[in-house]
């Protein structure tokens, strides 16, 4: 067994520097790497480029990094829930690259799997395809989108073992598996870290080969963005 465990978030983020590009898993506030984000805030890492589907809310998730002006550029598909984000974008302080959600996932997956680029129909004929190569396959037009290049991927999983094997829960899975192995270093935080052999190999979502560092996360807030319920009968 090749051991991937590190003791804590401080060790997990060793080598993180200003001006780097990070991938961060999560959809809205669901499945975000809360511990890694807190540590980036604490270290005041600056001029970051973040590849993340969303930008958090004003006081949680990536919103915490935005508030301290640590982010230089965001690559996202939807940024609607964050007023500070909108202010920084409209004032020009923050560079924003809006990318269709499926394209964002595909560009992460391409990086993970060694494809330099992929063709997608999404965004053809819109401003997303400006200055990009396009090509026709069987009467339909596609846009060439290049794989992302990132220094670190910060991923949140439900359970993981010492070998870096991962299991995700519910819709907290989202972009997390696609970002594993898509950056030079993949750092995973888990709610439950278990010894090798405890997870059933049949149930592993992401094998440890895509993971460099794994640690037991703590103090998860797991905030709900839109609490919608129906009354009990």
């Amino acid at each position, binding site marked *: 067994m090749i051991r991937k465990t590190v003791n804590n978030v401080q060790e997990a983020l060793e080598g993180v520097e200003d001006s780097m590009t990070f991938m961060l898993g999560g959809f809205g506030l669901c499945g975000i790497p809360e511990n890694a984000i807190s540590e980036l805030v604490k270290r005041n890492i600056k001029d970051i480029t973040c590849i993340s589907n969303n930008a958090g809310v004003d006081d949680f998730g990536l919103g915490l990094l935005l508030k301290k002006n640590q982010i230089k550029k965001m690559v996202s598909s*939807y940024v609607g829930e964050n007023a500070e984000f909108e202010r920084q974008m409209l004032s020009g302080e923050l560079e924003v690259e809006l990318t269709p*959600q*499926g394209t964002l996932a595909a560009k992460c997956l391409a990086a993970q799997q060694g494809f330099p680029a992929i063709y997608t129909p*999404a*965004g053809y004929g819109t401003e*997303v395809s400006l200055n990009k190569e396009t090509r026709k396959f069987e009467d339909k037009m596609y846009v060439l989108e290049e794989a992302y290049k990132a220094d670190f991927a910060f991923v949140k999983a439900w359970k993981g073992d010492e070998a870096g094997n991962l299991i995700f829960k519910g819709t907290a899975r989202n972009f997390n598996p696609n970002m594993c192995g898509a950056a030079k270093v993949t750092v995973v935080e888990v709610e439950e870290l278990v010894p090798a052999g405890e997870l059933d190999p049949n149930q592993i979502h992401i094998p440890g080969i895509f993971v460099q560092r794994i640690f037991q996360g703590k103090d998860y807030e797991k905030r709900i963005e839109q609490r*919608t*319920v129906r009354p009990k009968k």
Partner: protein
Amino acid sequence: MALDKNGIAQRIAKEVKDGYYVNLGIGIPTLVANFVRDDIEVEFQSENGILGMGPFPFEGEEDADLINAGKQTITALPGASFFDSATSFGMIRGKHVDLTILGAMEVAENGDIANWKIPGKMVKGMGGAMDLVASAENIIVAMMHTNKAGKSKLLKKCSLPLTGVGCVTTIVTNLAVLNVTEEGFKLIERAPGVSVEEIEKATEGKLIVEGEIPEMKL
């Protein structure tokens, strides 16, 4: 009388057929789930990673790890599955989802759609809309026929940045059901009590009216 949002959703629900996998957008499309006949089998997909999406949870049973694309807490029905974002859009891009229902700010007579950006005013991002409209073969747009200022949303040409080109097949508004054809918007049904003239007045793009136009049955 023109339909309200629930009326639009109720009419669209009639297009949801037995055995369909359906992706519902945010807003009016979300309401469609409330009107689907309960004697047919349908699975709702939410692009953040679930098939077999169920209703909102009972109070106290919310799970932060179980949300829909609108970031609302939901439940999973028997037979549901979870998956990653690349797989989710693989289902969409690979045309495995049978029907996509989404909202729009503008639709053009050639099927172009704009629903993600108002330059200088609103820039929230396209989310999954560009992927959905670029791949789905059966796209129903749910929207009001005119905007708050009373201007038509069914245009000759979209004025806002496009989400997709030539992709919309059907539009259901508070006034009418229309198909997008090579010649323009073809009027299929009128909302109860709404005249063809009213629909013509509210439609800027080319409207094709052939023969007697029936009233919607809800």
